[in-house]
């Protein structure tokens, strides 16, 4: 995390992302790539809490769900606009995160995890039973993909998978870039200091609770955008998006890739969705495979896949052979 991301690596990654639809040439995989982009944003947003501030949230699905429902309710019932939908998704989650955060950031450790879990389950219960608004456990169908552009001048339809992919890529890239800027700002450094030693930061005279609250709101807002994108991407949402196992999955993505690396969670999101997709081709029991990988990872590679890889690379390049020899 302290390392500045390799410019070369980021260029390659971005190039691959831009060329992906040309490379895969297949609607199914373009959709998988789109989903991976959205999940990457979601995982990176959660990492603001886990990796940067050291707060393990077990309720992050609440933003995925609330963002998704906000987008769906606005575009279906009020005004079918992509931008308005996304803004409402982000804004509603910012407000929700603000409200929840005021209570959550005062707790730490397991209590923080439990309170976030409890809040998200409240929202889940409301979405599940408030049939008139959310459609209850049937969820909501037919969420539109409104066209974008300037009214009267030009418009771009997002119905084609490729167009939609590029639209999501631009939004996600901009938001991730923003997140990266925040993470590397003095504000982001303070968050890392809080993770390492909150008492000390308090002694310096910085308002730890307020910093945590901002981190909470940033994570929630970014998660809300991911929820809005997911809503229009799938065209169908259900309360399952808000269930605690969904939150667990987002944590899993974050750790799978590596929480101490900025792009690690995105990598984890890609891994998880790819593994699920691959396993589902053979059998429906993808959870056994993912759970097994998770167990092995926690036991033998706790830095996450990309995190461990980066550490290995930097040992090779910075420490030369010394690092390796002392290890072996």
């Amino acid at each position, binding site marked *: 995390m302290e390392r500045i991301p390799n410019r070369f690596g980021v260029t390659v990654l971005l190039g691959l992302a831009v060329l992906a639809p040309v490379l895969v040439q297949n609607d199914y995989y373009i959709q998988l790539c789109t989903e991976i982009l959205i999940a990457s944003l979601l995982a990176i947003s959660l990492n603001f809490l886990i990796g940067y501030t050291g707060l393990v949230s077990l309720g992050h699905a609440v933003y995925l769900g609330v963002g998704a429902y906000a987008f769906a309710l606005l575009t279906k019932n009020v005004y079918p606009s992509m931008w308005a939908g996304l803004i409402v998704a982000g804004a509603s989650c910012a407000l929700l995160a603000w409200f929840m955060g005021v209570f959550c950031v005062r707790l730490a*450790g397991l209590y923080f995890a439990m*309170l976030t879990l409890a809040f998200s389950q409240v929202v889940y219960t409301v979405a599940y039973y408030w049939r008139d608004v959310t459609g209850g456990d049937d969820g909501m169908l037919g969420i539109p993909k409104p066209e974008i552009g300037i009214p009267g001048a030009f418009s771009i339809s997002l119905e084609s998978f490729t167009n939609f992919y590029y639209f999501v890529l631009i939004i996600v890239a901009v938001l991730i870039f923003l997140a990266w800027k925040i993470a590397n700002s003095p504000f982001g450094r303070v968050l890392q200091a809080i993770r390492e030693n909150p008492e000390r930061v308090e002694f310096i005279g910085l308002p730890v609770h307020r910093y945590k609250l901002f981190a909470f709101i940033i994570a929630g807002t970014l998660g809300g955008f991911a929820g809005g994108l997911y809503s229009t991407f799938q065209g169908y949402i259900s309360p399952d998006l808000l269930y605690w196992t969904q939150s667990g999955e987002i944590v899993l993505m974050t750790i799978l890739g590596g929480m101490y690396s900025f792009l690690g969670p995105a990598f984890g999101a890609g891994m998880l969705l790819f593994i699920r997709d691959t396993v589902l081709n053979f059998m429906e029991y993808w959870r056994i495979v993912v*759970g097994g990988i*998770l167990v092995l990872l926690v036991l033998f590679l706790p830095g996450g896949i990309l995190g461990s890889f980066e550490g290995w690379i930097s040992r090779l390049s910075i420490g030369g052979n010394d690092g390796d020899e002392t290890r072996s």
Partner: protein
Amino acid sequence: MELDVSFWLTQFLNGLANAMVLFLIASGLTILLGVLGVLNLAHGSFYMLGAFLIFSSSIIKNPSWFWVGLLLAPLVVAGFGTIIEAFCLRPLYGRERLYTLLLTYGFTLILDDLVLLIWGRDYKSVPIPALFEGRLSIGDFSYPVYFLFIIAVGPLLGVFLWFILNRTNFGKLIRAASTDSEMLDALGVNVNRVFTGVFALGAWLASLGGILAAPMRSVEPGMGVEIIIESFIVVIIGGMGSYLGAFVGAVLIGMLKAFGIEILENFAMIFIYALVLPILILRPRGLFGETTI
């Protein structure tokens, strides 16, 4: 008026029966939190395993199926728990707590799919054991005997647990480990073995809960991840590490659900959260909690 009283009495007893099952799961969960400092997300899976094992046992047409299952299934699950603790959790104690959380989440995923793989996706129903069939009638009021059996078993197991914790050597070690496991280690006690024992005991209790609940609920994959949320709430209300708190919390939740349903049909759970959120916010250690985690 007569009818009304018997209706509320039924609700009360239903709430109590559900509370006893919840208590079995939450008591293990809370002891694990107090002693090991582990929030075991897979605890609900042990409950699920217990229910599915008793289902398999009920297929055997021998009348003693329930008792054989009641005896063997929790031992199987406890053995399973022992393996998880000894080989997977133990290496993680020195590290950040996040990792134990993730590990148990990984086992939740594995066990959920394992159950699907072995028993299939469809709902199962477990018959009520022959001894407890039928209803007990007093005047106009009648109530299923099996539910009364559960209501009786709960406090019995509670006393049994209390006895283990307060009157046996193992219990003394558990309490010592929850206060200061390092000191216990320094005194020459094999703390690892105590931890394994606690984990196995928790798994044993949770699967017992699953067995007792099976005849009164439908047995399905996913029942584990559902019950764990309610058990957490019980633990939060009662206070992490407090075994008495788990009992009080379970009864409270059982009652709230039983009577909440009458007031607001679908929003019974909202009552529960309305209770939990202020407790977590104002008194995060719960009503009876003293242990620091």
